[in-house]
């Protein structure tokens, strides 16, 4: 009897599964038909997709000024507890900008994939944050986004956008989006302050002084423990520090002009070779960790914090992270670290910039049909750069999330998680263009970092080829980068000599480098001709 019953249950289960699948396959084959014949998935997804309920696809004539405009925005999120429409921060934002917002928070780690899927589905939000990736470039060229080059000047905040950064974000000379600004001159040299004091040294002003500090940190027992257990600068598999230091020596930032006004890649310049010789020297003298070429970059901080290495060449704000860790081991009143600008080299005071932006906000043509609507969206983006909005989205509501004391923002302590959540992730909407908003009162180390980064703006060396979109690079760029990147490391550790490096350059040229140079120069000429 028992057998019979279980037998029937099994049969029922299978029938249920079949019914479910029958329903599924019906939907699936429908999709196949319409997708196959009309060829445009967007035509049949707009209406029926499950999440398009309040995106306001048919936003209609937005003539009556008081009616809030419906705007959907796709931005990355770094958190899992995100605000919704009930958040007072969100409500104030809508009120201030007269909009009805749908913020599509997308986890940063899958952002790139979701962006491509969104592009492919044809159902684009009003505004999305994008980088200059090939699929975005192709979408821009094929009319997915509004060209806003000629509009920016009409807006009080947007007109203040940095022209160099705008140029970097442009595609074929046209500006499609408003960049989200980041510190441009972010780099700095961090030293172990205790070691400098022990040896009676000052942070380096010149490359010679820099070398002397590395030597002293390696051979003069900077930690006064009587053992030969220290070295100068710690570097990992991540080649950032080499990239930064070669700029000090006068090498261009990726591309530089030669005497004929043509662009040449950095590694073909004599300054680059000078820098390389210096690197090789400090490596052979043991001033760099011996295993840098294979070192796990997750362990980069370790030797500095543990008092094995005394110099760190990276972003200036790392001085704070290093200090925090060392304070945890043995607290003291003064910071353990001191951070300065790059030393002055033979070609003057130079340092490497960041790209200065982290994504740009583009406006889709499928959601914004008319120029009038475009003006309203731009007005919205402009308003996001008002000081009120920077404070609101960055710090929350005064009296609820923070207080203002002496012109500085002081966050409320022990806030309820629900109140913190009202604000989480909203700062990803900010572009940081225009007037600077008030911030936190700086600690000594933060004041130092801010000073270095401010001063850096005058000495950073831009990459003249950054705005260009190269077809050759898209094809073989990674191989080209590997050829030179590997040769550089092999040169530094002494596996190859100058002849070997020249051979690598020849290989680079043959692998597509010659075409790459030609293409970049054509683009360069065309851009200059305008």
């Amino acid at each position, binding site marked *: *009897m*028992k*057998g*019979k019953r279980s037998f029937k249950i099994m049969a029922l289960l*299978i029938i249920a*599964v*079949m019914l479910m*699948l*029958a329903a*599924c*396959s019906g939907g*699936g084959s429908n*999709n*196949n038909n319409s997708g196959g014949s009309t*060829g*445009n*998935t967007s035509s049949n997804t707009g209406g029926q997709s499950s999440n398009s309920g309040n995106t306001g696809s048919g936003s209609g004539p937005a003539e009556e000024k008081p009616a809030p405009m419906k705007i959907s925005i796709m931005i990355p999120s770094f958190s899992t507890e995100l605000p919704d429409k009930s958040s007072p921060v969100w409500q104030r934002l809508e009120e201030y900008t007269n909009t009805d917002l749908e913020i599509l928070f997308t986890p940063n780690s899958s952002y790139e994939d979701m962006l*491509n*899927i969104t*592009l*492919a589905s*044809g159902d684009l939000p009003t505004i999305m944050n994008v980088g200059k*990736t*090939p*699929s975005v470039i*192709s*979408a821009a060229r*094929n009319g*997915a986004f509004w060209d806003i080059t000629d509009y920016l000047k009409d807006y009080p905040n947007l007109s203040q956008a940095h022209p160099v950064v705008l140029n970097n974000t442009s595609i074929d000379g046209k500006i499609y989006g408003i960049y989200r600004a980041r510190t441009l001159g972010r780099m700095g040299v961090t030293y172990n302050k205790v070691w400098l004091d022990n040896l009676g040294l000052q942070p380096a002003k010149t490359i010679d002084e820099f070398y002397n500090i590395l030597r002293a940190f390696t051979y003069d027992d900077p930690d006064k423990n009587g053992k030969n257990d220290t070295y100068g600068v710690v570097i990992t*598999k991540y080649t950032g520090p080499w990239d930064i230091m070669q700029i000090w020596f006068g090498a261009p930032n990726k591309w530089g002009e030669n005497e004929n006004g043509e662009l040449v890649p950095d590694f073909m310049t004599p300054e680059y070779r000078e820098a390389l010789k210096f690197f090789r020297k400090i490596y052979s003298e043991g001033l760099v*960790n*011996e*295993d840098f*070429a*294979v*070192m*796990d970059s*997750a*362990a980069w901080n370790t030797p500095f914090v543990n008092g094995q290495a005394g110099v760190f060449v990276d972003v200036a704000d790392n001085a704070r992270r290093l200090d925090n860790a060392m304070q945890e081991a043995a607290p003291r009143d003064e910071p353990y670290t001191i951070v300065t600008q790059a030393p002055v080299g033979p070609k003057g005071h130079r340092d490497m910039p960041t790209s200065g932006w982290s994504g740009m906000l583009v406006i889709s043509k499928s959601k914004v049909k008319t120029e009038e609507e475009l003006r309203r969206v731009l007005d919205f983006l402009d308003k996001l750069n008002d000081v009120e909005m920077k404070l609101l989205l960055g710090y929350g509501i005064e009296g609820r999330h923070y207080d203002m004391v002496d012109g500085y923002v002081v966050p409320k302590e022990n806030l309820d998680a629900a109140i913190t959540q009202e604000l989480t992730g909203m700062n990803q909407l900010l572009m940081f263009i225009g007037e600077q908003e008030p911030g936190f009162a700086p600690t000594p180390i933060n004041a130092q970092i801010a000073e270095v980064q401010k001063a850096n703006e005058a000495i950073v060396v831009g990459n003249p080829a950054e705005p260009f979109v190269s077809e050759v690079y*898209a*094809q*073989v*760029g*990674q*191989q080209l980068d*590997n050829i030179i*990147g*590997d040769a*550089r*490391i*092999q040169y530094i*550790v002494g*596996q190859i000599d100058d002849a070997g490096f020249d051979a690598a350059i020849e290989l680079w040229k*043959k*692998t597509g480098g010659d075409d790459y140079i030609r293409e970049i120069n054509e683009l360069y000429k065309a851009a200059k001709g305008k």
Partner: protein
Amino acid sequence: MDTTINHQADMTDLDPRPSAALPKRRRSKWAKIRKDYWLYILLLPGLAYFIIFKYLPMWGIVIAFQDFSPFLGVLKSNWVGVKHFVNFFNNPDFVRLLRNTLILGFYDLVFFFPAPIIAALLLNEIRVGIFKRAVQTMIYVPHFISMVIVASMTYVFLTTNGGVVNEIIHELTGQRINFLADPAWFRPLIILQIMWKETGWGTIIFLAALASVDVEQYEAAIVDGASRFQRLWHITLPAISSTIVILLILRLGNFLDTGFEQIFLMTNSLNRTVADVFDTYVYQVGIRQGAFSYSTAVGLFKSVVGIILIYGSNYFAKKFGHEGII
């Protein structure tokens, strides 16, 4: 003794044929299908799954012959024929990539593939149940540790700058071995990492196969005076040989898949000549630079090789009297 209950009354409705009688060998197809209708009902959900979730999206393969842009979609993107295949085969690094991929795949097959089998057989020889279960539970733990962590640990142990292994070697020989930078050590390290991480996990499937070996066979063999080794050779191994052959054929289908993450993490400027494989190349050229079409083309090449290897090995398996996968 449930099995003896007679279902005849129930079954007659469903299966009017007397089950023992099969007078004609050639029945009409329809009758055959009707006879097996339960099997088709069982087959249907799975078949529907494959059609909906595997074959409906299959149109995505055509982008290998396009310059695909997600915004334009498959119908508006430019058709470029076999351009991406030509670029791939004409790539100056193609021969090196192929060589590295094949060697690594071969090492994997020779050294890693047998490891779980040997481990399962060794475990099978353990008679103390609690010890066996404890070992089993411990050795499958690394499967859950991500490759990033494995690579980090490898660095910490092997670095010439204070790594434990090199400190020991230094004590003994006065020298240090640059495991991480020396191209000669790259492949052994990759295989050792994967053996450490996946051997225990791999034993599970063989232990399941071993669990179905009839205990009476062992008892009979012991009575006949067979040694441990003879029992292993004549009872245990044949019992799992079919599983081994199936897994081998399936592994060959993925022969060119070396895995991306592990290799990428272990590659550096000093060992790249031996480290670059198809998977890392596709990642660097395709995913990073958004070249959907190019990476699809390379994937298609790998799949064609895989399907040839699967059907080829399946053919040989059958020829040598084993069951293939079909």
